[in-house]
């Protein structure tokens, strides 16, 4: 990057998504295996300094400097644990260093209880235009059971504060399949969310990830999880209730009001490129997947020593690309266009694959407007379908 006369910036046709990882939380939830650590104001400050350096280094690279950025996503961790001014600074820096599209989606993950009205206002003014609240459930007992530090009442209050602060694009995360949760609890969570009428809803099923507290409890046999039948009913109920309330299901676990699909997540699912900054962040850039040093201390040292913190990378082979496009594309309700689908399967005609014919005949896959989609019936067994096609 030692050019005397830098070439004028001509936008690369495909825009990039930008992910910024904030690896701090007040406490770890019992189901969480994400890359996050207990919040400490001093460490966070140092971390942001490193992040700032990383922004500069990447912004100057050939693979990024001519790319439009269509979305910025602050994920974590709990990004809202930072001061609004700190977020503001990071965003200002991004605007200066990258080519942010006008109207780029700028999302931030927040936990109820970590924000008040002034902070929300400051974040809005700083440029954040989409908030994603981790609500998970509306029963205080269930929330405690999974280690959340807020109650249902707090979640509602925070939601209205966000509206007051001018946020017109809000997502709520809800979780089903929680220990002790029954179908009725879940319906209440959904109804509560529908009443708040956010622009976007994510309904995630609990997954017991190794190393989490719930996983330990499960192995010790002290976890009463809903049975498979109940879980299936919860998922079906989600689709039914949310669609009835005017939400469009555009991905396996994501729903939105018309026009409010999450731009950032679509980058992942539509197999577009993205740059991840911060500890443990993943990138997909220039045909390679790579990831940063996981531990904040290692991340900072790497940034200091070599400007970036890439810890590992793998080229995406043709074969891998094929599986990924299938796996990601079919998660979208819109599915894959017929041509891409056939290419990914290496067939000229759908009838060339017995499996595809069978899945279409049995109504697990559907063909609509020149696209192959997983049907409503197929959604519950989406993994099985994707695996059969891989």
């Amino acid at each position, binding site marked *: 990057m030692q050019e005397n006369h830098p070439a004028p910036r001509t936008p690369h046709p495909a825009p990039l998504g930008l992910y910024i990882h904030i690896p701090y939380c007040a406490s770890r939830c019992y189901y969480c295996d994400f890359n996050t650590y207990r919040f400490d104001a001093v460490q966070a400050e140092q971390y942001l300094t490193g992040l700032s350096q990383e922004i500069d280094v990447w912004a100057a690279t050939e693979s990024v400097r001519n790319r439009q950025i269509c979305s910025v996503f602050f994920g974590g961790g709990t990004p809202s644990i930072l001061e609004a001014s700190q977020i503001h600074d990071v965003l200002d820096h991004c605007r200066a260093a990258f080519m942010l599209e006008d109207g780029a989606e700028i999302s931030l993950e927040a936990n109820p209880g970590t924000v008040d009205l002034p902070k929300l206002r400051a974040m809005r003014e700083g440029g954040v235009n989409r908030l994603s609240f981790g609500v998970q459930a509306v029963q205080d007992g269930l929330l405690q059971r999974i280690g959340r530090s807020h109650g249902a009442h707090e979640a509602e209050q925070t939601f209205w504060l966000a509206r007051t602060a001018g946020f017109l694009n809000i997502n709520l995360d809800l979780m089903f399949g929680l220990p002790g949760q029954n179908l009725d609890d879940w319906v209440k969570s959904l109804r509560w969310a529908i009443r708040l009428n956010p622009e976007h809803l994510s309904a995630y099923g609990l997954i017991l990830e190794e190393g989490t507290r719930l996983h330990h409890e499960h192995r010790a046999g002290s976890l009463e999880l809903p049975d498979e039948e109940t*879980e299936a009913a919860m998922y079906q109920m989600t689709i039914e209730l949310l669609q009835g309330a005017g939400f469009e299901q555009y991905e396996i676990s994501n729903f939105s009001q018309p026009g409010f699909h999450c731009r950032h997540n679509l980058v992942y699912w539509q197999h577009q490129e993205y740059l991840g900054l911060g500890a443990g962040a993943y990138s997909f850039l220039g045909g390679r997947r790579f990831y940063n040093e996981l531990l904040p201390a290692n991340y900072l040292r790497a940034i200091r020593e070599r400007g970036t913190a890439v810890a590992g990378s793998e080229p995406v082979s043709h074969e891998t690309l094929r599986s990924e496009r299938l796996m990601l594309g079919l998660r979208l309700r819109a599915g894959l266009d017929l041509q891409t689908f056939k290419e990914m399967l290496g067939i000229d005609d759908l009838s060339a694959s017995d499996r595809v014919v069978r899945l279409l005949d049995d109504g697990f896959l559907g063909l609509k407007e020149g696209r192959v989609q997983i049907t409503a019936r197929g959604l519950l*067994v989406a993994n*099985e379908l994707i695996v059969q096609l891989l």
Partner: protein
Amino acid sequence: MATDLNHIRNFSIIAHIDHGKSTLADRLLEETGALPPRQMEAQVLDQMDLERERGITIKAKSVRLRYRPQGGQEYILNLIDTPGHVDFSYEVSRSLSACEGALLVIDAVQGVEAQTLANAHLAMQHELSIVPVINKIDLTNSDIGLVKRQIEEVLAIDASEAILCSAKQGIGTQEVLEAVIKRIPPPQGSPHAPLKALIFDSSFDPYQGVIVNVRLYEGQVFPGMRILLMSTGAAFEVAQVGVFAPQMRPAELLSAGEVGYIIAGIKDVRQTRVGDTITAEERPTGRPFPGFKEVRPMVFAGLYPTESEQYLELKEALEKLRLNDSSFTFEPETSLALGFGFRCGFLGLLHMEIIQERLEREFGLTLITTAPTVVYRVTKSDGSVVDVQNPSHLPSPQQLVRIEEPYIKASIMAPGEYVGQIFGLCQEKRGIQRGVEYLEGGRVLITYDLPLNEIVMDFYDRLKSATRGYASLDYEFLEYREGRLAKLDILVNSEPVDALSSIVPKEQSHLRGRVLVERLRELIPRQLFEVVIQAAIGGKVIARESVRPLRKNVTAKCYGGDITRKRKLLERQKEGKRRMKQVGRVEIPQEAFMAVLKVHAP
């Protein structure tokens, strides 16, 4: 080359599995300098990876050792390593006939076991001089006195001169070498008589063709000479002769009494059958080696590629394996359920496992193996007699007059307290008791006539678990006997799956049908739709189970940018599917095809 016969000894080491045969062989190689210690890789003679891993010898081979006793003249000691498993008993018998004596290795802790007995009897039949060697005497729980009493009482061998040894520690190995010289007689036979050589093994080398392992009884063989294989009448010109030391070392000639190899441009191991006699074309011997028989596979199973595109690869791999293994057979077979594959014949279960493992390991194939079965001899109503190697080919009851199945004589040795369990098991396995003998040290020798098919099923595993691993088993083929047998069919979603058919005793057919469908219900994973499994005899359904459809398998979680992790999760699921065969619309895992073997009342 020709050494004075008095300075040659041909011997083998025989033992029950794990009694230390290969370790002793290694030690002898080391002591005689055939290999310097630093070049020793544990168990030199077991060259195949599989042999080393499993600690068993699969192929017979020989090695030439030079040994000079203190102040004496040098001796040539030919150690002929024999396969250590009942599947290869014919090869063992041929290897033994190439020797004048045998070291009978017995574990000082385990004592005499079933294979010790079988091997000792075999050695006696061949009139070999037997030198008992009590091995592992360094172990604290060894009981030399007891083992000596067992040797005398059970084997009727004088144990007073048994050699005490620990091959692992190198204790007693000099005494073993001394005993080979003093207690095993030298070979006899005239180098001037017509050539008479016994084939005890052969292997295939892509550059030199078949390498035949031989023991010469009479005459000489040398490059340029024309030899005749007596069972086939095929003649070849000798290109090279030599000895294994332990690497192949060419020699000018091999002479009566010696052990070595012959290379003669032979292209196919099936032409050099173990037990055949090689003689000179010009001047054939009038006395070929007696007792030659063609080894016939006893156990058959279908081998199918999980991906049908691998059919040709499988065929090529089978052809390559057969280059080295004349006792293994295969022919194309078509299964309605499994598509195109091969029906393969093996000497026994171990042989089958070895071939299967080599196909997967060395050739990278993914296979579905159907449950092994014996060969049934079926008399049809038109009077014709057919061999049935595949249960699904059993003629219909209307066309069937008689089914006969192979029986074996099983010798089981175990501590006395397990007699009850062993009787129970043999009873369940349709055994006929032939004898019970109480031996020194509280052990019992039990003999039964048993259908070979029961051995092919789970007999050995069940015997081991019924006796906490203490029982040992050896068996030999007896004869074909009529059985009251019926074909048990399995239907999956109303379609018969030929590869799951089995032939079962009539009186147990209902029970086995019920247990089998239950096992299959556990083994067949849930699918997108319900899977109904039925057992039927003669078209009549006798048991039914169903696998309920997959209800929910969806990852409703956001992994953010970590697409790789998400992909790997799905790829792992995909990997699991590779081990399954699509039968109609149902995916059936490999284990299901083996379930037939493990069907017994709970």
